[in-house]
């Protein structure tokens, strides 16, 4: 496997002193779908825009497909595809006019019919962009990135603000592109998106990578793959909960306790026994997610703003 993207000791300080990225290291292999997972303001977009050659880094090294920005810009622009966060394409142009415009910039563009079919916008090809739904606009933005048949695809929060069905449609397009052996770097603050699409993820917080690995690896680092959440009236004894069999970690906030457990069938009976006589208002068990990884690493939720 060869490296598609690499950045080392990347730093970005904006004029005015905001340190968006503070020494970030990343290596993405060819053919991999890599996710940058983190809350808003973690530095994900800044990192991606530096890799896309749209922002100069304050310090650090960046390599894309073995080339560097500032030396091989025109070649790199032909090799990468980009979908920015919140780009509004020209509202008065139709789907096919927009794609024909974007295709005209590339030396070797794909036939636009093929791209329109790939993002399932065939019925909308003569509709104006302003009349498309959010999901359709987002698929068109993706089509503008795919029209050049790029080696690397950068997607900055591709499904933010979309309904579940639109998200699934977009995921299908991304998986189709990945199946052709191409590389993807995407940012998201949806853990389910990262789990479904990404081979590996890096959890980013305050401009640094705080954990990296496959979603399964990160979850297994919690010590247990399951989560038991419950709430009861009255105070909880954290130490006593932690001492229960198969319980690996305990977190209590606002009357709700979250236990990370290795074996649900061992932990739950012991827990119920422990809580005997008290009023249990809720009890749920689920598989641990990247959200739990993030909370255990930072003590905060991904969507806390």
């Amino acid at each position, binding site marked *: 496997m060869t490296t598609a993207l690499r950045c080392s000791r990347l730093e970005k300080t904006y004029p005015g002193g905001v340190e968006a990225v503070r020494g970030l290291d990343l290596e993405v292999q060819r053919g991999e779908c890599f996710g940058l997972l983190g809350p808003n303001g973690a530095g994900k977009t800044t990192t991606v825009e530096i890799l*896309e*050659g*749209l922002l100069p880094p304050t310090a650090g090294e960046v390599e894309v497909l073995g080339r560097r920005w500032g030396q091989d810009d*025109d070649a790199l*622009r*032909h090799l990468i595809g*980009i979908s*920015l966060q*919140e*780009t*509004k*394409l*020209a509202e*008065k*142009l139709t789907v096919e*006019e927009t794609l*024909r*415009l*974007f295709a*005209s*910039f*590339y*030396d070797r563009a794909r036939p636009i019919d093929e791209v329109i079919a790939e993002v399932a916008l065939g019925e909308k090809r003569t509709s*104006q962009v302003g009349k498309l739904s959010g999901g359709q606009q987002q698929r068109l933005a993706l089509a*503008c990135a795919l029209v*050049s048949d790029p080696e690397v695809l950068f997607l900055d929060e591709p499904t933010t603000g979309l309904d579940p069905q639109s998200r699934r449609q977009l995921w299908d397009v991304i998986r189709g592109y990945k199946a052709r052996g191409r590389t993807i770097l995407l940012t998201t603050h949806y853990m389910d998106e990262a789990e479904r699409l990404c081979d590996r993820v890096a959890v980013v917080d305050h401009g640094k990578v705080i954990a990296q690995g496959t979603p399964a690896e990160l979850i297994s680092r919690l010590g247990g793959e399951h989560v038991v959440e419950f709430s009861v009236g009255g105070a909880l004894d954290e130490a006593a909960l932690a001492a229960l069999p198969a319980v690996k970690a305990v977190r209590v906030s606002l009357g709700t306790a979250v236990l990370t457990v290795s074996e649900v069938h061992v932990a739950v009976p012991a827990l119920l026994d422990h809580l005997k006589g008290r009023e249990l208002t809720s009890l749920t068990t689920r598989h641990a997610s990247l959200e739990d990884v993030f909370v255990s690493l930072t003590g905060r939720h991904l969507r806390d703003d």
Partner: protein
Amino acid sequence: MIRWRPFRELLLARMREALREPEVIFWAFGFPILLSLALGIAFRNKAPEKVFVAVEEGTAAAKATFATLVADARFDARLASAEECARGLRLGKFAVVVRAAGGVEFRYDPSRPDSILARTLVNDALQRAAGRKDPVAPTDREVSEPGARYIDFLIPGLLGMNLMSAGMWGVGFVIVDMRTRKYLKRLVATPMRKAEFLAAVVASRIVFMVTEVILLLAFGRIAFGMEIRGSLVVTFGLGLLGAFCFAGLGLLVACRAQKIETVSGLMNLVMMPMFVCSGTFFSSERFPDFAQPFIKALPLTALNDALRAVIIEGAGVASQWARIGVLAAWMVVGAFLSLRWFRWT
């Protein structure tokens, strides 16, 4: 280097976007025509007004005096009773009242200019009718030929003003709008070359400019019988230079602005002095002498004056070098600074 395909697609995209926006069509094409129609009608040349004069009845010479005045097309003469005459004069119905008895007595109000004028004209007519010979023979020539009317003055001015506002908005506003939508950033992320984009924006302005000039000149010709005395080629050449000049200034105000409000403010700041001073609606010569060098250095003044010289007076290029130089200087400065300072994101 500009590649043909991206340039063509960018130009087509610009044109489609503009043409699918009804407001754009109205402000570019409809508004100047409506404005020239309204002003052309408001300031049209009227037939000269008649002088209202009354002759008091009852004297021996009244009939003869009345006959003299009625025969003269400049007067609207009445024969009326003394009482009616007094009342008419008081109410402003008559400008002057004539009482002919032996000599001739004029009753008029010296505080009313029309009254003074009427007295002079009536006196003149009566004296001549009575056989006065003017020692110096006067000859009158009335001037109201096409070319000297207000509408003839106005249309080249509107042409210039329209080239300015359409150029500034059509470039400045469009670019800042694209920047706020991050559309510029998306375009820069492709292998599109910056020169291709800017060339397409300016080229779309040129296409619109040609249409605007044709429409407004044709309208002036058809609706007001305006004559174009100079060469059409020179007129379009000036239009082209004006379009380039204001496209450059539009680019300059848009080169850093991050918000529509910022660019709108800047554009008004740049255009307002020229709306007022550059002689669109009235001659810029009316401003005091010390202000003239500044006013003459404004690009819109140069454009308006050159357009008027060519369209109304039939001047050739040779006599307009100074004005062409002013426009070219603004064009070069605007383009140079904006390309230097331009930000895509």
